[in-house]
């Protein structure tokens, strides 16, 4: 009964032949190791191809990360608005309106914004810590007029005191914020005594000392006074001198740069030019030039040569080992077991070449980076993909010889 049912289902009278994965791998490893020198030479093409591939991608990633480290988050969230009115209309007058900070502050994504310029006072421009005549000389120190928003946008770090605010600014008060270096040069150590600095003969109360800024580091070497105060004492900025610094939230910079001129001067947006942060992709694109494509092509050619090498060696091995194939077939191996064995051998050769190539490529990247004093960067995906590329090359190359091997008739193979 049982036999009948099996027969009806087309069941086999004997247990079928099998080849467990572990046995397959150990057989192909043995096949590969029986000619170690030949195997090494065969894998060489794959080593070169995969090695070049890893080296190119690694070097590209390394140079890109050099750019990335320069192009950090700070730059990506910074927009500068320049005054270009002089080229168009010499009589345009002050370009930034008095409420420029508020106008820009209303745009979405703006954190701080403000107008600033370098002041060039007529006549004596020296900065002293005591009235004129108390001592001779004085220091040549830059003076920057900055609205409270501009000061905040520079993201300063206060050592002492505070920044001047909109209230002080609106009153055009004679107050100043100075860098810690300037403070040391002027002999100001504490703000508790309400020290003053004199610009020319104008006294300014120092309200804050900053020891760092994340943007516009030159502020640290300047005496910073409110925009309104500067306008009251020295007049409005000359055409083209004033700029606006906008600190934005991440991702908002492009849109804000687009909107800023109109928001500031709906009547004459063309007087202003907003400079958005550079697009990192275009930056990278200029570095990753045609040369890399050439090398990648070279890597592909190496891989093809490697594949042809593996195909050739595997084909020779199949012809050489016809007797072995016949024997295995006589011992119960099916054609597909023979195919699997030779495919595993060529695949292992390719994967091995891929692994060695990955190591050599990685080493190349590290050496080049060390020589150029860079941080070597290789994307994990590159490292993971490279041996797989080697494996696929090997499998592809072994396909034809392995199929041919499976078609060898055992009776003929054993006649040899």
């Amino acid at each position, binding site marked *: 009964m049982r036999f009948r049912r099996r027969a009806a289902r087309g069941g*086999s009278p*004997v247990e079928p032949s*099998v080849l467990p994965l572990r*046995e397959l791998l150990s057989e192909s490893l043995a096949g590969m190791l029986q000619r170690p020198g030949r195997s090494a030479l065969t894998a060489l093409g794959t080593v070169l191809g995969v090695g070049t591939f890893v080296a190119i991608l690694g070097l590209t990633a390394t140079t890109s990360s050099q750019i990335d480290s320069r192009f950090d988050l700070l730059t990506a969230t910074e927009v500068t608005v320049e005054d270009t009115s002089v080229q168009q209309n010499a009589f345009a007058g002050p370009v930034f309106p008095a409420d420029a900070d508020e106008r820009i502050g209303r745009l979405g994504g703006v954190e701080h914004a403000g107008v600033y310029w370098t002041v060039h006072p007529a006549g004596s421009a020296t900065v002293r810590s005591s009235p004129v005549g108390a001592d001779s000389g004085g220091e040549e120190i830059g003076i920057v007029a900055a609205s409270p928003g501009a000061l905040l946008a520079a993201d300063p770090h206060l050592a002492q005191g505070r920044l001047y605010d909109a209230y002080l600014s609106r009153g055009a008060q004679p107050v100043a914020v100075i860098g810690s270096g300037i403070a040391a040069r002027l002999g100001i150590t504490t703000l508790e005594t309400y020290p003053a600095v004199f610009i020319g003969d104008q006294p300014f109360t120092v309200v804050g000392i900053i020891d760092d800024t994340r943007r516009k580091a030159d502020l640290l070497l300047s005496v910073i006074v409110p925009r309104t105060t500067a306008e009251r004492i020295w007049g409005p900025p000359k055409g083209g001198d004033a700029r606006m610094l906008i600190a934005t939230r991440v991702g908002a910079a492009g849109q804000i740069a687009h909107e800023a001129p109109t928001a500031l001067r709906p009547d004459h947006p063309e007087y202003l030019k907003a400079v958005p942060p550079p697009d990192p992709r275009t930056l990278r694109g200029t570095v990753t030039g045609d040369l890399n494509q050439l090398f990648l092509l070279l890597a592909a050619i190496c891989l093809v040569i490697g594949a042809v090498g593996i195909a050739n060696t595997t084909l020779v091995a199949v012809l050489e080992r016809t007797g072995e194939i016949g024997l295995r077939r006589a*011992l119960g191996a099916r054609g597909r*077991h023979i195919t699997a064995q030779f495919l595993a051998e060529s695949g292992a050769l390719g994967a091995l070449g891929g692994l060695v190539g990955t190591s050599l490529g990685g080493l190349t990247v590290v050496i080049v980076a060390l020589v150029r004093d860079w941080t070597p960067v290789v994307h994990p995906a590159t490292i993971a993909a490279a041996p797989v590329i080697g494996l696929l090359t090997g499998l592809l190359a072994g396909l034809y010889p392995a199929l041919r091997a499976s078609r060898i008739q055992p*009776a003929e193979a054993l006649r040899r």
Partner: protein
Amino acid sequence: MVAEVPAVEAPAVIELRQAGLTYPGPPPVAALTACELTVGAGEFVTVVGPSGSGKSTFLNIVGLLDVPTSGSYLLDGIDTGALKDADRTALRGRRIGFVFQSFHLLPYRSAVENVRLALLYGAVPRAESHERAREALARVGLGHRLDAVPTRLSGGEQQRVAIARALVSRPSLLLCDEPTGNLDTATAGAILGLLDELHADGMTIVVITHDPLVAARGARTVSIRDGVLTERATV
């Protein structure tokens, strides 16, 4: 004679019914013409015939390496003509042990590994296959050369490894094609002694030879001449 037939008849190991093989050519070669042969379990049969008479063709059919172009062949009662290729392969691997004139050992693998090869495709667990390979090598008197590679073995020792490989899968039929063809007389004698022992243990053996001395070892001898198989009484 009739009295000797067992009451419960086990199927014959080999049953050729008008089996013949014509190589397609061109030109077609009738290497074996319809032959009739039955070999029961435990028999020791030798096949003789001049070169080119069709001995290897006969062995290929019996060993399931080739399919007869006419007639049918039953191995252990299974009609092999109806089998799919995969089943024929499995049957060959499990029921037939081959010993070739040129040994056919893998040159870079140890004696144990060579013997184990016969169990590779038979789903025998690794540890068990190693143990059985060692046992088979001990059986043919090579228990002390387990890890030697064939290139370090003498011709007689190589043929013993080949016999161990043929035995290890516990086949129902041992097929030998000129097993002593590459050996000197003394070594050949030792190998034939080994085959005698196996026969005494109940193994069914078919030996192909053109050497009358070897042929004389068989309890039964068939001869092939120009593809025609005839049975003749042993001397």
